[in-house]
């Protein structure tokens, strides 16, 4: 288990980065925290000719509250997100998710950009980005564009950047006052990826009825689905126990169609059912049952 040889480039600015990326094309990969890329290189699952180290690019390492939301540089480490007071005020759930990643040493190096580009189906950050409909700021020699992560994340381990594109930052849209977001993670063993994450984002209307409901579930080796439109008919209804039961049923049925009904699938669905109840109760503000955001 040793990586194959490659040439190494260490850059200081995004401009240099997009220039080099344009020149080297697919022969080059970007090295951020390396917490996923290095094991892949060591196992020789990936054999790039060039490795571009972006760890010095300070312009990608910032957390900025902005008019329309929260901007997080691609190079921001998980531990930074987990300890950030700014994130805590704007998106407490994101902070909690970051703190749940892997282990302390992995969080010290792993980055949000790397996580999103890797698009591991069991990972925390991609799930959060899907839930909050985050947009990635992408740069290439052709210029800057932003794209919804929901559109980029096509399938497991496939975040469809265009040729020569790099992620500069990610923007989590500003959330309405009446939004609550809750997630539940289920680990079979500590220290590694959870077997299941479910996350709920609930926006209430002035009467306390549902104004918006988004649910994302990471389970099995599928791209976590964003479940939203399937709750349109429930708008305005109060999220009481009966409604939550209905929502959970729909979620479980939808996931069942995706991850299959073999023993492992059945098991995950059953766990999901229970976790959904907790999540939904929390999102509905029923603190008796839920953990709350």
């Amino acid at each position, binding site marked *: 288990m040793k990586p194959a040889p490659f040439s190494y480039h260490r850059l200081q600015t995004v401009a240099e980065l997009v220039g080099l990326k344009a020149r080297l094309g697919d022969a080059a990969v970007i*090295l951020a925290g*390396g917490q996923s890329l290095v*094991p892949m290189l060591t196992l020789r699952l990936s054999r790039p000719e060039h*490795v571009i180290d972006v760890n010095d690019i300070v312009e990608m390492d910032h957390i900025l509250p902005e008019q329309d939301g929260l901007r997080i540089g691609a190079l921001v480490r998980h531990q930074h997100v987990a300890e950030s007071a700014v994130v805590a005020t704007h998106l407490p759930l994101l902070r909690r998710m970051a703190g749940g990643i892997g282990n302390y040493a992995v969080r010290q190096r792993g980055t949000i950009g790397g996580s999103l580009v890797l698009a591991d189906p069991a990972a925390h950050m991609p799930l959060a980005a899907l839930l909050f409909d985050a947009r990635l700021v992408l740069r290439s020699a052709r210029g800057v564009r932003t794209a919804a992560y929901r559109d980029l994340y096509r399938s497991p381990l496939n975040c469809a950047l265009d040729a020569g594109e790099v992620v500069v930052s990610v923007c989590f849209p500003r959330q309405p006052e009446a939004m609550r977001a809750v997630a539940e993670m289920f680990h079979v063993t500590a*220290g590694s990826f959870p077997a299941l994450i479910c996350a709920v984002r609930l926006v209430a209307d002035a009467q306390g009825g549902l104004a918006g409901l988004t649910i994302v579930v990471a389970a099995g080796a599928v791209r976590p689905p964003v479940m939203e439109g399937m709750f349109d008919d429930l708008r305005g209804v109060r999220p009481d126990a009966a409604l939550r039961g209905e929502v959970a049923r729909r979620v479980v049925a939808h996931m069942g169609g995706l991850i299959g009904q073999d023993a492992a699938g059945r098991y995950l669905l059953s766990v999901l059912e229970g976790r959904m109840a907790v999540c939904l109760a929390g999102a509905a503000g029923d603190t008796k049952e839920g953990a709350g955001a």
Partner: protein
Amino acid sequence: MIISLTVNGEVRDVAVEPHYLLSDVLRDRLDLTATHVGCEQGICGACTVLVDGQSARACLLFAVQMEGHAVTTLEGGAPSAELRALRAAFHTHHAQQCGFCTPGILMTFAAYLRDHPDCDEAGVRAVLGGNLCRCTGYGPIVRAIMAASAALREVADV
């Protein structure tokens, strides 16, 4: 290529190839063998060192990346107060048997105790979850870390 990195406070020039892992360069080129390699996948934690004072897996870093950064290994020059307290407590509490996991645990907590002087057992356990030990069953390690933390607080109070 020759790179120059600061290891345990000393600037060292070392010939490496870009694909050499930091763990291998520390051990094989710089003779710093306290950093152990147990999995090369970031899972076991035996290779944990400090990079600019923060814990990191040496098996998930390339040595070339360390140019301009400070790496600290268990051998590291003058030990910090945290490391001294940890060593004493690990000895008293019999927190190592074969000792292979020990350097990674000591480095992880040298940084953690420094940054979290008021840590509680739950916090310590959560962090220790990133290090595998096949010998002790972890109980003595947790007790030793808590004892080290208490000892450091006592010193700080005086």
